[in-house]
């Protein structure tokens, strides 16, 4: 088990400081963030793995987690001239703790995961101004950008960039991330380099290439790129080949003719055999874009996912690596409530499933509100997908805020605690209301607060008016602050504490 010192070192090693930011205090504040405190029941941070499984095409959330007591669902989906697109209550697998939603009948394995407390279901996940294009929305999910911003790098790429700042000259022996695709996606693109290795089938180890010329234009620049790729390929494939040759075996039979299952079986073998990659990314075929034949094709698609993920979870438990792995099941958008013909069109919010032994199982968020659709008839979101990313990065990978800087900081404030991290330390302040508009109050277990500093996410210190109130803590007048996320650092006795809040416009 890692010591607290090691953790701190890991945290401080991540992230190259950005210019013009006062990191000394912010860094310090974040390093002491209680979310990063160690828990005895979690594996060391450098052993932890995230498996991202993307259901490409736009998964129909309403037919995955079915609101089987909702009349509107049956009226609109069921009473459809192109054939019913609803899942009848008798075909819904009930789950513990709720009488209003349940799994599609093709998903018994995931239902069991949920009932065993190994799955967090995050309902109505999306982002503001949902884009209905597969590609644009995929880009948004992979980069973590706002819908109206264009970001070439991916959220995992930026995280891995902070972990491996010198990857182009000296790639680590183990690829930082693996994608079971034929090309590396935006997910693993950093600002300069890519951090993923597209790995599919047996690949020959290429010769170690010569040195690059460090050219900045023309053919030589592209030749350098080829050399860099060849070098990465050489290093990674040597490691992978050695690991494959001495690979442990899967402990059970994965479903046949199921490429998702084959890929997950491969992940299990690689992790159990000592590959140190911390991110594995899988994408399904375009089997979720059910414009037609929803009932038939969606059933098949969910079966593929369910049987594969179910086998994977059992296998990694048997292999003794389950406590190191978190699997995230997501899609670029959900689908609309009202069918078109025999299928459904591109929509907005949908559920995200997070599975693992260290997951705090349960339903997070309200059931979809079918009475309150947006102007185009789409489900509204209430959890931003980046709140999930923020949780995974901070609570699972122990990332300091810089690696999420600046895109995820506001979401870090609203992260959702679906990982079994320890309870907050006693010095964590209570900030309410949060988000706030004109003022908020900071208190700390009825203890006295001696001083308080406020930083913007850019690291700039603010000095709004503070009213120290011995019994209730400190009232802050936030009306002068621009909307956004803020960090606070304070002293209570000789104990420092840290917290954060979001200022919203009225």
């Amino acid at each position, binding site marked *: 088990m890692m010591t607290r010192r090691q953790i701190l070192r890991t945290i401080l090693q991540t992230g190259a400081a950005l210019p013009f930011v006062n990191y000394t205090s912010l860094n310090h504040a974040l390093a002491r963030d209680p979310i990063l405190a160690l828990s005895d029941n979690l594996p060391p941070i450098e052993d932890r793995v995230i498996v991202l499984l993307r259901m490409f095409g736009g998964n129909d959330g309403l037919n995955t987690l079915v609101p089987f007591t909702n009349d509107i669902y049956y009226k609109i989906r069921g009473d459809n001239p192109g054939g019913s697109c609803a899942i009848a209550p008798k075909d819904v697998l009930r789950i513990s703790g709720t009488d209003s939603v349940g799994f599609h009948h093709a998903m018994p394995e995931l239902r069991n995961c949920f009932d065993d407390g190994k799955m967090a279901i995050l309902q109505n996940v999306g982002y503001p101004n949902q884009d209905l294009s597969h590609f644009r929305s995929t880009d948004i999910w992979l980069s973590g950008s706002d819908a109206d911003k264009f970001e070439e790098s991916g959220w995992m790429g930026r995280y891995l960039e902070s972990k491996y700042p010198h990857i182009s000259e000296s790639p680590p022996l183990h690829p930082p991330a693996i994608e079971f695709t034929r090309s590396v996606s935006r997910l693993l693109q950093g600002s300069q380099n890519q951090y993923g290795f*597209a790995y599919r089938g047996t690949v020959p180890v*290429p*010769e170690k290439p010569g040195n690059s010329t460090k050219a900045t234009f023309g053919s030589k620049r592209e030749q350098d790129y080829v050399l860099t790729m060849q070098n990465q390929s050489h290093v990674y494939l040597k490691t992978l080949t050695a690991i494959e040759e001495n690979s442990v075996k899967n402990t059970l039979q994965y479903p046949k003719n199921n490429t998702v299952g084959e890929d997950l079986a491969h992940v299990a073998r690689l992790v159990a055999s000592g590959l140190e990659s911390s991110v594995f990314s899988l994408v399904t075929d375009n089997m979720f874009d059910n414009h037609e034949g929803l009932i038939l094709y969606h059933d098949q698609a969910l079966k593929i996912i369910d049987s594969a993920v179910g086998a994977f979870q059992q296998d990694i438990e048997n292999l003794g690596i389950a406590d190191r792995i978190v699997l995230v099941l997501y899609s670029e958008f959900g689908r609309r409530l009202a069918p078109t*013909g025999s299928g459904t069109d591109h929509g907005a919010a949908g559920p995200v499933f997070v599975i693992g032994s260290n997951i705090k199982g349960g339903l997070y968020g309200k059931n979809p509100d079918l009475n309150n659709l947006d102007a185009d008839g789409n489900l509204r979101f209430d959890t931003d997908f980046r709140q999930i990313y923020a949780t995974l990065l901070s609570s699972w990978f122990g990332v300091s805020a810089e690696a999420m800087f600046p895109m995820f900081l506001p979401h870090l404030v609203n992260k959702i605690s679906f990982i079994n991290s320890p309870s907050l330390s006693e010095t964590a302040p209570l900030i309410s209301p949060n988000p706030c508009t004109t003022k908020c109050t900071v208190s700390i277990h009825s203890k006295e607060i001696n001083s308080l500093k406020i930083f913007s996410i850019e690291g700039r210190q603010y000095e709004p008016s503070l009213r120290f109130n011995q019994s209730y803590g400190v009232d802050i007048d936030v009306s002068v602050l621009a909307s956004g996320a803020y960090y606070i650092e304070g002293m209570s006795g000789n104990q420092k504490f840290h917290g954060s809040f979001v200022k919203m416009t009225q």
Partner: protein
Amino acid sequence: MLKAFVPSIDHPYDYASASHLLRRATIAPTHEEILQSVEEGLSKTLDNLFVSFDLGDEYIDEWSGKYSPTYPQNEVDYVNWFWTNKRHVEMFYQWWLMNIRDTPVSLQERLVLFWHGHFATDVKMNIEVAQHLYVQYRLLQKMCMGNFKAFIKEITQNMAMELFLSLHYSYVHEGKKYINENYAREMMELHTVGIFDENNNRNYTQKDVYEAARGLTGWFSKPSELGEEYLPKFSRFIPERWDDSEKTYLGQTGKWNTDDIIRILFEERAEQIAVYICKKLYSEFIGDEPDKNIVHELASTFKSNNWELKPVLRELLGSEAFFHEDSRGVLKKSRIDYIIGMVRQCDLQDVPDFHKEQVRPGDITMRLEFWGQLMYNPPNVSGWKGKRDWVNPSVLSRRLQFAREVVQNKVFTISYPTPPSIYRFDVLKFANRFENINNPALLAIEFANYLLPHTLTTDEVLQFQEAILDGGKVYEWDINDPKQRVEERIVKCLLSIVSHPAFQLY
């Protein structure tokens, strides 16, 4: 107008320029084609590039262009049909590859591949009948350098496209509308204008997608209903299936049909369409990062010529920017370029794909499937990522291995059963095509200039010469003296050339 490249004493239309033009505009020119182009000069070569070729259907005429029945209903017939069709699809791919190999100097097959990526359709999604693939390919051949607006009209009525993007499932029936936005969205997002303009303003709203989808209704062609009339060439417009009510599309209001929707799109978003397409052409022919001024020059040519592609392509390929030293050798060879390139450039024999009688699947098609560029198998509906992704690390190592095996006559086949010899490379016949067959030092330079796209450095020349000399002296070289191990030394030189990073580029 872009500044034209005018050959001069300082910048002649020489072997290097001619091979640059032909590598970009055609697929893997042979030594002889390059020499002939130098002889004929730039202007005549440009004329030649716009000649179309039809090499005939002989290879596949047992089924091509003929009536294609609907799937047999009973199971036995279906199984027979399934395997026959599978073979036809395989033959179709091979026939396509033969067209690439055998078409004389022309832009045609380069552009067909370009448009195939642009209008990506997937054989796995509703169009598994070989006839559909054939018909769409013929359409791409016919329109590849024609009028782009007419191209959009034709592709909208192409059966494969309509089936793939659900256009047949967007219709009116008994007064009720079943509007499917799939085709309307991709027509705008991927085929014509893109979601955003150059300043990241949206080119259309979700409402426009819906209104366009309503205008595009009415297309249908279910074989069983059309009987003998059915040919998978065009679908039919069935007025009762068309939504005849008023639509407001991109600001114009009326009872629009398919022709109107396309007309309005090209009227209201002319500038954006011109820029979107010219950017893509720039990336295809000049370099990964489009130069804004050049794109605008091309776009204005495109518009003023009423969407004719020839003037744009001629201006682009004849421009100074195209021939600039910094533009040479910067594009990454696609996987088809790479494999067919070796077949053409090294005149490889016994390629399994090009023997009709054989029962086993082709080797190039299997390789393309494995490397991720089999035709009609795009990674998704937006086509292939291309650019640097063509040489991502895992494919790069396969590419390097293939080239090394070819020049050593040791191709490890991934198809089965293993034939005695495939991709047979006649080393001496190859070497005899070059002027300096009797001078190894000069011969090495000739090889490198033929196979590599950039201006060689002194170090590179020495490296290739060292490989061919292999410790021997220039004056000792005798092509007929077995003691000189000429063949072995040529292979050594070629190995060194194909292992050079520039061999991945063109």
